[in-house]
């Protein structure tokens, strides 16, 4: 049923777009509605950025202006028609979008808000001062009537153009939201660390989201320029950027219908607020504050929550489609097959004066369970963090199947088939259990942005495979009853299991488990031991970091002991257990022990 819901929504919206012009009583009403169609395009693009990646742009008016001026100048001076001017504006706006976003979002999301405000102001300033190109404060007049391929597109025809464009943007943005791209954006906003560990390029995804927001704003700008046939700098101010943002937040960030409702309200509201003069700006601020405090999920978001209170969604999922788990987790991805061998040689990491890892060499043989133990502060997690790219080693190198990965970004290492869990669980808290697994599966989905936008056969096939794999993994770890529960509501023991499941979804060749038994009950630890053995039997190499000696003794093929950042023993579990240096590291020297006893 839920798959049909978007189609029903699209149909309803289409009917709305057809009915409104038929009922419009005068030209002013129709024109206002056409403005709504244009603003809605901006809001839908911004919704991807704000609703999915959790970033804020306060410069959409600048990008809107950039599109409008690009289109107007090309149309007036070079005779571009509606189509070519739109394409040019989209390209220019996207380029500026990438240029603004890439340097900014890789540091801190907050920076994007600041840089976009600045961008909006610069565009306004340039539009005023570069008179030769932009006409200065007077703006550009006499923009030719819109035409496409020589056919005039005026009056109701232009309305049709706007309605078709908006409808296309609704469908495309909604499809993107429900694809691996949308899920990746949500995942990145929840936990950057976890996103990297499943192979997501955090900077790339955020930049993509902003480019989408920029491209739609640029497109809307051209449409505005042709509608108005006159543009000037004072139509594109900071207040307008706030208004665009408010559309998304008021309607309900992350929901397509919310962006439309928000755009509708904020197209018509200013017509009434105009009488308020100075209070108009205050009203925007007040509205923003009221939304944040009273309706933080927006109109649609809140409505969904209320609806779900009366009609709760089942937590479990139909497990009928489960397929063989071994086939699911052993699938070859990008030509990588079989078990992997990890060879770390002479790794050294220093934090200031502290040497956390000192010349550590560890070899995890293919399809083996290799345990890494040591007292607290011995450098175990530091080792995991360095071979997964979260820390860059000061000296030494590590290889996966002979390929040197030292110094590579963590998401690239993850894409080589190295999956991990975290000592302090890192889940995508607001995503459901099922969605967490789908994000873990991400590196196996090969479809492109275009496939996702148009829901091609390739897209559908791969998504179906992804769902099936996720169901199988849920069955394997026993989380089927919680499939539609948000990850952060799971009890702690199950969260740990979900982390392992998410790592498995990536079809890893080497799995790094960072203290998976910490905080688990005895029974849960026994189940975990069984699970680890089973995973190894699929041919996945495992590096297990643990404190629980029983667990290690029962599953490990080899044990390496770290103390003060250095390897002090590496052998079979039985011989390590009797190694005097190991005993000393854990219990102190025999004399100290005797003194304590006597």
């Amino acid at each position, binding site marked *: 049923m839920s798959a049909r819901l978007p189609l029903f929504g699209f149909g309803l919206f289409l009917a709305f777009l057809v009915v409104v012009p038929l009922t419009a009583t005068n030209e002013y009403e129709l024109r206002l509605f056409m403005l709504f169609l244009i603003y809605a395009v901006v809001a839908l693009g911004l919704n991807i950025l704000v609703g999915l990646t959790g970033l804020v742009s306060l410069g959409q008016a600048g990008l809107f202006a950039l599109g409008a001026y690009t289109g107007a100048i090309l149309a007036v001076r070079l005779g571009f028609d509606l189509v070519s001017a739109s394409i040019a504006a989209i390209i220019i706006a996207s380029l500026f979008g990438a240029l603004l976003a890439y*340097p900014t979002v890789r540091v801190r999301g907050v920076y994007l808000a600041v840089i976009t405000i600045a961008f909006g102001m610069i565009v306004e300033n340039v539009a005023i001062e570069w008179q030769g190109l932009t006409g200065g404060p007077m703006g550009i007049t006499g923009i030719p009537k819109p035409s496409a391929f020589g056919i005039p597109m005026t009056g109701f025809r232009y309305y049709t153009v706007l309605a078709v464009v908006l409808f296309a943007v609704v469908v495309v943005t909604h499809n993107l939201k429900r694809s691996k791209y949308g899920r990746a954006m949500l995942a990145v906003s929840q936990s950057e660390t976890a996103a990297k560990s499943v192979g997501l390029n955090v900077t790339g995804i955020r930049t993509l989201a902003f480019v989408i927001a920029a491209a739609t704003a640029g497109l809307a700008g051209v449409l505005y320029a042709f509608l108005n046939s006159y543009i000037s700098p004072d139509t594109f101010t900071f207040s307008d950027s706030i208004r665009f943002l408010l559309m998304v*937040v008021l309607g309900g960030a992350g929901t397509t219908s919310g962006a439309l409702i928000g755009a509708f309200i904020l197209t018509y509201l200013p017509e009434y607020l105009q009488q308020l003069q100075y209070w108009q700006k*205050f009203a925007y601020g007040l509205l923003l504050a009221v939304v944040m405090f009273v309706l933080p999920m927006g109109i649609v978001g809140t409505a969904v929550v209320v609806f779900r209170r009366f009609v709760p969604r089942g937590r479990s999922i139909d497990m009928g489609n489960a397929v063989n788990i071994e086939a699911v987790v052993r699938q070859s991805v990008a030509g990588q097959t079989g078990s992997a061998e990890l060879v770390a040689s002479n790794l050294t990491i220093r934090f200031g004066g502290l040497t956390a890892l000192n010349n550590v060499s560890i070899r995890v043989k293919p399809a083996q369970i290799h345990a890494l133990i040591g007292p607290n502060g011995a450098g175990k997690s530091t080792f995991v963090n360095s071979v997964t790219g979260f820390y860059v080693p000061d000296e030494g190198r590590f290889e996966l199947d002979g390929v040197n990965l030292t110094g590579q970004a963590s998401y690239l290492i993850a894409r080589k088939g190295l999956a991990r869990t975290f000592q302090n669980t890192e889940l995508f808290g607001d995503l459901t259990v099922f969605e967490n697994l789908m994000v873990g599966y991400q590196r196996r989905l090969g479809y492109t942005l275009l496939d996702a936008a148009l829901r091609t056969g390739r897209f559908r096939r791969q998504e179906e495979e992804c769902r099936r794999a996720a169901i199988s993994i849920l069955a394997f770890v026993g989380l089927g009853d919680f499939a539609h529960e948000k990850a952060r509501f799971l009890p702690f023991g199950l969260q740990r299991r979900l982390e392992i499941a998410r790592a498995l979804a990536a079809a890893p060749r080497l799995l790094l488990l960072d203290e998976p038994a910490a905080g688990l009950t005895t029974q849960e630890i026994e189940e975990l031991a069984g699970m680890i053995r089973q995973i190894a039997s699929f041919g996945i190499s495992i590096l297990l970091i643990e404190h629980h000696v029983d667990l290690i003794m029962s599953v490990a093929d080899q044990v390496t002991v770290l103390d003060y950042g250095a390897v002090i023993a590496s052998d079979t579990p039985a011989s390590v257990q009797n190694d005097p240096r190991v005993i000393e590291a854990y219990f102190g020297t025999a004399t100290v022990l005797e003194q304590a006893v006597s």
Partner: protein
Amino acid sequence: MQTALQYIFSGLAIGGIYALVALGFHIMWSTAKAVNFAHGDALMLGAVLAIMGIDVGLPIALAALLAVAASCLFGVILERYAVRPFAKTPTSIGWMLTTIAVGIMLEALVTMQFGGFSRPLPSPGVDKALNILGAGVYPQELLIPAVAVAVMLGFVWMQRSTLIGRAMQAVAFDRNAAALMGIDVNRMFAISFGLASALGGAAGILVAPVTQASAQMGLILGLKGFAVAIIGGVTSAPGVVIAGLAFGIIEKFVEGYISTAAREIIGFSIAILVLLIYPQGLFGKREVFKV
């Protein structure tokens, strides 16, 4: 030569204001890992309230003091009601939008009370220009960068040598561990926002005699202060002050030799370029995060 010197002096003056605003961002960020997007409005509040105080007949020193206190209070209230409720969400969108909302409302209210025009703040610092090697400089303009440097040194001293300063650093490093050590984390947030806003208000009072005050002055100064914090490295107090002064000087030269539009373009392009090459800012420390 004379022109260049003139640009340097007036650049240091406006740069000192950027430095003070950026220091505010530094203080808030380094304690709460959140900032106040209405910080520019704290500056505007300081300047406007000082003028209004003089209007009703208060002596200038008292008016300035009250204005700074009001700015400080503004920061504390904002932190309590607009930032703290959203501090625990994984994305920063909550406190960004609430502080922006407060900024918009404040600016609109002040516009209605104060009028939409600019007014100078009378100050003894701009009575008579000094002549230094042929360049005309108001004492006020010399005072601003000096205050910025002094405040920076004072803050660094406070962080190193006072209990509150150390507690603020502890909260920044790990707020849960700090709370377990008996530090009142919320109080530290309140203090950092209050201190930052007080500095903002003071910056407004310092700049108003030179550039005039208006309800709209906060947005652009706040924005540039943030750009300076990005350039200098929001984690480094000396870094943001150096960057602020340098930014001010560069602006004056670009403005003098090219145009005011070029000034904004070049200024923010520098910020983007620095981010591209030095993501942590020129003097910022890389934040090692533990996973």
